[in-house]
């Protein structure tokens, strides 16, 4: 009821009737989905899209991970992972970016925990990696685990009494969890002058724990303290040198003394800080950012000593190495062009909040982006002439340090950004699912093509043509007879401006801003989602014909047919998924009530319609009791033909 209450309080007047299924395992999914899309629902433009994902699927199973406990994940080593959560009975394997670990069959299936075993490839670098558990017809949301290079992992509850800590080796990983109001205490035996590094990994694993580390001597006196180490997303790292031989106590707790099953930690004792680079590189690659980067070279604090770049340079990397540091790059262009420079900092784990400034050789500022922009700064500027320009990179608050790294993407001629709030998509049997993709064009207004790639066998998707004024596109995935009844597969959504332009992956951007620590997910750069077979649909829609041709001034009727299952016999309201204002110029799509098996829906091309090839995204909405189901019609291609040509052709 807490979620329901929260939703009722925050829906800002949007009325969404909810199924009353308190004991249905899918009600949890539904509620979570509502929470997930809560803010998105507040945007009228997106309302229709959201409902697409609210379809309760009678046979889909959505496992939930609360915590992943790893045996000792090390490159080249055997791996055992235990997932603790809910609805885990039908789990088959654990998906990791570098491998899949099969489940270890249990004598007695347990819905709350499962084990996986396998091997971590030798080539995997220590770091934090995405993980999901897969069932026959479901997939969990992202979770995170650590591949580490410390010699052993200890999974223990740990002492909750400071005078009697749980003694652990000085080089190990401790996995555990914090209870409310009760810190955990671990003892480490050290020699005089021995230095110890301790790193709490929690926030980076989406743990609800906001970790605080303390080092205590035997009498309880504090010798070290750390909270929120820059660059660790709220986690803590502490270095300590023992003044004399003895057992020293490491205290780990939540800064607010909260606790619970979601307050888990991966405590690294000894060794150096967990390298962020591996995680960052995985994220950059997933986001399609693979071009070589120009590394800044110091000194480059003024325009007389800039870091040189090539006209072909697409990435610049560096760090604000100390407070007040300024990095200047010389950028060259051979012709006037639109330049977009996008900083990646926070989503790569860097605490830097950049200020970017582009100026010409005379020192005139063309544009600067700082506090008025988003967290990751972005410059979009029309460079007026060929020549050399200087890009100045500063930290907004004049902070700096080794953790203050950045990665800058340079795009000449405009930039295309596509994103989605969808992390997993269920494709019903003999039906279609729709994924909403937000489109942002910077420095250009070209039409785009958005499509899904890496699809499972038997799943098809028609590329969507996104007209210049369109901000949201709907990519539909259709499960054909050739598809397996069950599958789970990572897929990608891609966009491009023309056939020879590079494809841009859609990045995952959760719609919900954090409202509490427990609900908080740190921003990450990640692309890709999972598609899985979602079982039988309540209804599915098809259009006849599936490709249209229309002349300006003409109206044609499109026949929409519904295939219904079970009791889903109610009226289906048919309409365009794309708002009327974002349809191709001159095209309008009517509405219709699909009462039984089929209905016709009018599509009009005004005299002003511009000849060309377009996409139509239609959807049907069915309401039954308190449930609302939205299903897409697979993407239709409509061609507005030139009147004269058609006549000539006739």
């Amino acid at each position, binding site marked *: 009821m807490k979620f329901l209450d929260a939703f009722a309080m925050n829906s800002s007047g949007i009325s969404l009737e909810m199924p009353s299924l308190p004991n249905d395992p899918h009600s949890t999914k539904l509620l979570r989905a509502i929470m997930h899309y809560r803010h998105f629902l507040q945007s009228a433009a997106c309302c229709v899209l959201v409902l697409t994902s609210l379809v309760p699927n009678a046979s889909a199973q959505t496992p939930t991970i609360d915590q992943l406990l790893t045996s000792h994940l090390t490159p080249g080593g055997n791996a055992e992972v235990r997932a603790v959560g809910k609805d885990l009975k039908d789990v088959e394997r654990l998906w990791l970016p570098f491998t899949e670990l099969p489940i270890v069959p249990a004598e007695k299936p347990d819905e709350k925990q499962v084990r996986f075993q396998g091997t971590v490839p030798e080539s995997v670098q220590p770091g934090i990696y995405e993980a999901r558990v897969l069932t026959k017809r479901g997939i969990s949301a992202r979770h995170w685990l650590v591949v580490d290079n410390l010699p052993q992992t200890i999974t223990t509850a740990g002492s909750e009494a400071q005078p009697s800590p749980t003694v652990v080796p000085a080089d190990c990983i401790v996995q555990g969890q914090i209870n409310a109001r009760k810190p955990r205490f671990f003892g480490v035996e050290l020699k005089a002058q021995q230095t110890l590094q301790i790193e709490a990994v929690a926030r980076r694993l989406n743990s609800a724990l906001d970790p605080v580390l303390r080092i205590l001597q035997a009498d309880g006196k504090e010798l070290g303290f750390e909270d929120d180490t820059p660059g660790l997303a709220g986690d803590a790292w502490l270095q300590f040198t023992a003044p004399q031989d003895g057992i020293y106590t490491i205290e780990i707790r939540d*800064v607010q003394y909260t606790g619970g099953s979601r307050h888990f930690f991966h405590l690294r004792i000894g060794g150096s800080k967990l390298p962020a680079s591996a995680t960052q590189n995985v994220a950059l690659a997933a986001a399609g950012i693979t071009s070589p980067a120009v590394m800044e070279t110091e000194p480059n604090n003024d325009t007389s000593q800039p870091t040189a770049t090539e006209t072909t340079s697409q990435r610049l990397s560096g760090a604000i190495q100390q407070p007040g540091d300024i990095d200047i790059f010389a950028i060259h262009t051979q012709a006037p062009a639109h330049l977009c420079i996008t900083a990646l900092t926070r989503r790569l784990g860097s605490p830097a909040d950049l200020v970017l400034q582009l100026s010409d050789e005379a020192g005139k500022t063309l544009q600067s982006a700082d506090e008025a922009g988003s967290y990751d700064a972005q410059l979009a500027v029309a460079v007026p002439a060929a020549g050399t320009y200087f890009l100045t990179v500063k930290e907004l608050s004049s902070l700096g340090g080794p953790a203050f790294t950045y990665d800058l993407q340079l795009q000449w001629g405009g930039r295309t950004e596509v994103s989605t709030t969808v992390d997993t998509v269920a494709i019903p049997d003999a039906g279609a699912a729709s994924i909403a993709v937000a489109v942002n064009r910077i420095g250009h207004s070209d039409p785009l093509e958005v499509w899904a790639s890496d699809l499972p066998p038997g799943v098809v998707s028609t590329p969507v043509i996104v007209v210049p004024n369109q901000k949201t596109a709907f990519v539909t995935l259709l499960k054909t007879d050739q598809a397996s009844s069950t599958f789970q597969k990572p897929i990608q959504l891609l966009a491009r401006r023309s056939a020879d332009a590079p494809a841009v992956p859609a990045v995952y951007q959760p719609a919900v801003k954090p409202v509490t620590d427990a609900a908080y997910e740190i*921003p990450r750069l990640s692309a890709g989602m999972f598609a899985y077979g979602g079982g039988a649909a309540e209804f599915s829609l098809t259009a006849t014909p599936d490709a249209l041709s229309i002349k300006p001034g003409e109206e044609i009727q499109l026949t929409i047919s519904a295939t219904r299952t079970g009791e889903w016999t109610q009226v289906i309201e048919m309409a365009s998924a794309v708002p009327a204002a974002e349809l191709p110029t001159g095209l309008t799509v009517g509405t219709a009530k699909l009462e039984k098996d089929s209905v016709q829906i009018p599509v009009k091309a005004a005299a002003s319609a511009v000849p060309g090839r377009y996409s139509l995204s239609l959807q049907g909405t069915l309401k039954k009791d308190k449930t609302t189901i939205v299903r897409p019609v697979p993407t239709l291609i409509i061609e507005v033909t030139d009147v004269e040509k058609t006549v000539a052709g006739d």
Partner: protein
Amino acid sequence: MKSPINRLLSAWILFAAVGLTARADQTASELQITPPEIRLIGSTSSQQLVITANPASDGVFDASDQASVESADTTVAVVRSGIVYPVGDGTTTITATLNGQTTTAQVTVADSATKPPVIFHTEVLAALTKAGCNMGACHGSPSGKGGFRLSLRGYDPELDLLTLRGEFFNRRSNVLNPDESLLLRKPLMEVAHGGGKRLQTGEPTWSVLRDWITEGMRTAPEGTATLERIKILPEQRTLRNSATRQQIIVQGFFSDGSVRDVTALTAFDSSDEAIASVSDNAVVRREGRGEATILARYLDRMSTAQITFLTDRENYDWQPPADAQGIDLQVFNKLHQLQIQPSELCSDSDFLRRATLDLTGRLPTTQEAIEFSGSTSESRRSELIDRLLSSEDYARFWSLKWADLLRCNSRRLTSSGVHKFRRWLFDVVRNDKPLNEFAHELLTAQGSTHHNPAANYWRASRDEIDATETTAQLFLGIRIQCAKCHNHPFEKWTQDDYYGIAAAFHRVGRKPGWLANSEHIFVKHTGEVKQPRTGETMKVRLLLQGSVDVPAEQDRRTVFADWLTADSNPFFARSLANRIWGHVMGRGVVEPVDDFRDSNPPSNPELLDFLTQEFIAGGYSAKHLLRTIMNSHTYQLSSERNDLNSDDEAYFSHATTRMLTAEQLLDAICDVTGVPESYAGMPAGTKAIDLVNPPEGHKFLQVFGQPQREMACECERSSDSNLSQALQLINGPVVHDKIRSKDGRLHRWIAEGKTDSEIVGLLYLTALSRAPMPVELQTAEQHIAAQPDRAGALEDVAWAVINSKEFLFQH
């Protein structure tokens, strides 16, 4: 029947005679005229005189009303009722005579035939202020009174000029027949006036207003000299026994270099009417024994004089403590001056309890009490101070004080933010970060409030207005709030000062941080503050120094913080030294500790100077200053008073008793009973002083004045006693439940088989850091013996100890 005039004359003769008789014991061996040189320009000028007898000795007295003063050349100047008036151009000498002693002053008169016009900005406004017309309760209120609105104490002359000259078709004045002007008739009560009689015909204020109307209510000609400052004379005087009055004068220093007597148009106030009253004609009279500050206000300028009235006390026998130096020297000099005998040194047990509570907020443990009482070390007190200062308990307690003032509450800083900020404050105190660095760091903080908790200063303070008032009160000890809407009515601070400070804080940017619950503070490079009255774009203003230009790219806060924390800053070190002193002494040298103003002077300026210099010399170390204070004889004086200091509340002749703060008291009850309090969201055993946030709905803490941390004012922590407190202690669940708890200390002692006397002894040691006196022990034992329920009787004893003043109070 005598006519009123005759009656007045008779009264004057009688008064004069009584005066002469009453002061027969006053002998003048030397006379002095103030000012010694007098320059009168124009026919309307004048000079009030102060005739001082024996100016350089303890026998000094004001002879202004006794000495006869005569002019050597009455064609140049005459003297009437102690005031010199011009007659003709030239130079002459005036001579004052008393008891055969004489003294002279030179008088120069120029332009005596010229009647200068009344100047609105310097005379009319001053007259309106002196008459009280434009005070807040009258026409100076925002909505005025009776349809007539003036700016508060004349802070907006242009508005007043417009109102007086033009409003309602100029119905308030009659230039052709000035005496018919409402502006005069109302305050003379010739017609009904809600404000009563404010003017007397013929007095200077009336003359100024009437002359101004007569002259056509003109504005001042271009180039008219403006007032720069005023000075009150004498600035300081100590008057003994039969010296019961003091004439004062006020000199105005103008932009053309002239110095004029503005006494007649100056308004006066006394800081303590029970000691000294001051009349409209600038005579201070003794009302009681002690020191008072006389505040003179002329236009928007202030000046003060310290007047002390002393009477010899019987049995006063000054026994100066041996080798008094530093703090003690300053305190005892003052006490000797005021004939106040300091108390004896406090006992060791009192000292242990006092020092432990002051530095750590907790009671001494039984072990500490036993060890301290058994110590034979001559330096045991200073050793205790050092030990306490180096403890984490000190950091816990003193970070609480800063958390209160810096508004560390979850409503402002979020639930995790308060933890992070409090921890940062703990480190500041524990590491004894110099307080100038601490202030500088707070004022210039930027970045994530989680990574850099000092930035929470700017999260708690949401705009430049709040930041201005908070910073002024916290680090300057100045309550500058009044100057937001108008020049400060009782102080020198103007709207320009207020908005000039605000200009330093205007460019603070805030945006959501990317860590949960965090905020990002940064410096913007645009944005200006406008003075609302003048519309002027304000530069950064440093008090008493003026406006400064700050380069566009520079953080303006840094300029302000550099000025604030410099050794030369006249406010910062002084206010913090006073604040620290106030926390351990129970009262500031300036009290309230964050209310420095000319009209609220330090009770012992030399002491405050010493503390300030010691604080600076000690590198702004709070620990250093605390160590210095607590090692002083003054700190270690008993709270028991003697006949010669029983009425002293300001000069530190004895320790100031005060009730334990809410957190101290609750922790003390928990310590004595051995039953910890439970707080939502905090680990078991958490003490009240460690709470990062005032807990919601905790009745006990609320009743005893725990602040909600919404203000940067020490006053938010209530120290008032009230009935609810008594009910909590006598009958409240906190005290009762803890005493009765079977897990508590008392019942453990019973279970351990301790005797009655052992338990009573432990109770006293735990609660009061001392053993019970025989009579106390006997009384307790008798009570226990008389009760059928031993445990209940012991609970009664514990209840009585907890409800004793000795337990409840810091002493």
